[in-house]
């Protein structure tokens, strides 16, 4: 079910046109295979995107996305049974260009056996100051329905809203910078109906027991990012981005990302990158509460814990030779691989054994693969 928690922001991710007030994106089609493998979880599936302009003023796009999940994560093996499930998502977007202003609307539906999410978005971007500056604003609204397997009476809504502001600026003939700010609010049933928290229980043979987690019913977060991209003198590019995040649950997070893009001849583009992420725990998070019902709100989701992740990335794009097909202008085949290391500071691996609260800290590696072909027509 957790698959859809952040659908609201995902809704516009693939289908919405990149913010560039004066030009509509090119007609293209992408067929992508994605695979995530780490921490006992394997998720793979396809993502298909088609975008088409008409009358040089309008553009429509559609995205179909599938997650096929096979989970035996540490949460699942300690408090439940491994499971398989599938989530499908469809998005439609419409863009309109009027001089230097671009308007975009999109709708998304995501469905899995115990979670349904619908969302709608509106974005506007405007080129300013001789097209050196692009200003964009956006708003999304999401309506989720949380269900629970084995409990036909369980049905809880979640209402989500997102407010976005973006600014991109060409500073010199080789340097552009971007700023983004986003506020997201959620209201409703925000925890996972299957997940439990752990508490000390002297009567239990293990020394601890579990009870269902309880989250606040509201959450508001603010995030701001600053990015830069620089064109090197020998035709290559470097980019960097920093994001700061804070929310009403007490989580503060920083993300730092750097990357290098290097073309090889006319047919290859190679990429390498590193991403660092660090967050503090939510106020109501604990790996081990000292008694049952210790607080009004209690969570033991490792995403709410204190942790750091490191990601190394490598990728290659190959421009395919012309097939001589009139309708296909160009095409590429792309392979990207990311290796992520997650290191938790206050989430313990209870499968490792030891006295409650002294088990070794949890950590795992994940492999992420993206293989896709793109065609421009």
């Amino acid at each position, binding site marked *: 079910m*957790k*698959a859809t928690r*952040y659908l609201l*922001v*995902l809704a516009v*991710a*693939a*289908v919405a046109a*990149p913010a560039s007030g004066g030009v509509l994106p090119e007609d293209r089609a*992408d067929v*992508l295979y994605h695979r*995530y493998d780490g921490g006992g979880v394997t*998720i793979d599936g396809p*993502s298909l*995107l088609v975008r088409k302009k008409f009358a040089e003023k309008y553009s429509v796009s559609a995205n179909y996305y599938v*997650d096929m999940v096979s*989970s035996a994560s540490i*949460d699942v093996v300690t408090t439940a049974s491994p499971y398989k499930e599938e989530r499908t998502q469809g998005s439609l977007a419409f863009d309109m260009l009027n001089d230097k202003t671009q308007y975009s609307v999109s709708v998304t539906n*995501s469905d899995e056996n115990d979670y349904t999410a619908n969302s709608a978005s509106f974005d506007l971007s405007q080129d300013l100051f*001789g097209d050196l500056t692009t200003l964009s604003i956006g708003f999304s609204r999401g309506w989720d329905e949380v269900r629970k397997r084995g409990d036909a009476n369980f049905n809880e809504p979640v209402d989500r809203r*997102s407010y976005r502001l*973006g600014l991109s600026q*060409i*500073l010199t003939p*080789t340097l*552009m910078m971007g700023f983004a*700010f*986003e*506020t*997201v609010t959620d209201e409703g049933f925000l925890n*996972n109906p299957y997940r439990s928290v752990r508490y000390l229980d002297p009567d239990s043979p293990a020394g601890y027991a579990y009870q269902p987690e309880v989250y606040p019913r509201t959450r508001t*977060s*603010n*995030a*701001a*990012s600053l990015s830069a*991209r620089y*064109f090197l003198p020998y*035709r290559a*590019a470097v*980019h960097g*981005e920093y*994001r700061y*995040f804070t929310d009403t*649950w007490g989580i503060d*997070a920083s*993300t730092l990302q750097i990357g290098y*893009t*290097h*073309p090889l001849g006319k047919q290859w*583009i190679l990429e390498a990158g590193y991403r660092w992420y660090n967050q503090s725990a*939510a106020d109501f998070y604990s790996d081990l509460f000292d008694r049952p019902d210790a607080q009004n709100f209690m969570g033991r989701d490792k*995403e709410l814990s204190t942790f750091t*992740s490191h990601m190394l990335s490598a990728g290659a794009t190959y421009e395919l030779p012309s097939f001589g097909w009139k309708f296909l202008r160009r095409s590429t085949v*792309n392979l990207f691989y*990311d290796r992520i290391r*997650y290191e938790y500071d206050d989430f313990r691996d209870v499968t490792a054994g030891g006295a409650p609260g002294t088990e070794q800290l949890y950590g795992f590696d994940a492999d*992420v693969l*993206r293989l*896709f072909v793109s065609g421009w027509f």
Partner: protein
Amino acid sequence: MRARVTAILLLLAGATGCSGVEPWVKPYERQNFADPIMSADRDPVSSAYLNHVFEAREGARGALGSHGGGCGCN
């Protein structure tokens, strides 16, 4: 005080809006930004997926340069 702030804001608006900012990077100097390697989001279907990987496993969300995105599982 409020009147002074309003006056300053109006002055700023006038300075930027009416006088017209002269583009200091001329259109013929912008060919580098047309190069695909300078695109912040060259392949949206791919970057959307990666953002989705992050947001499913991290507490943070939003303000990603090229929209957001994310979901995933336990």
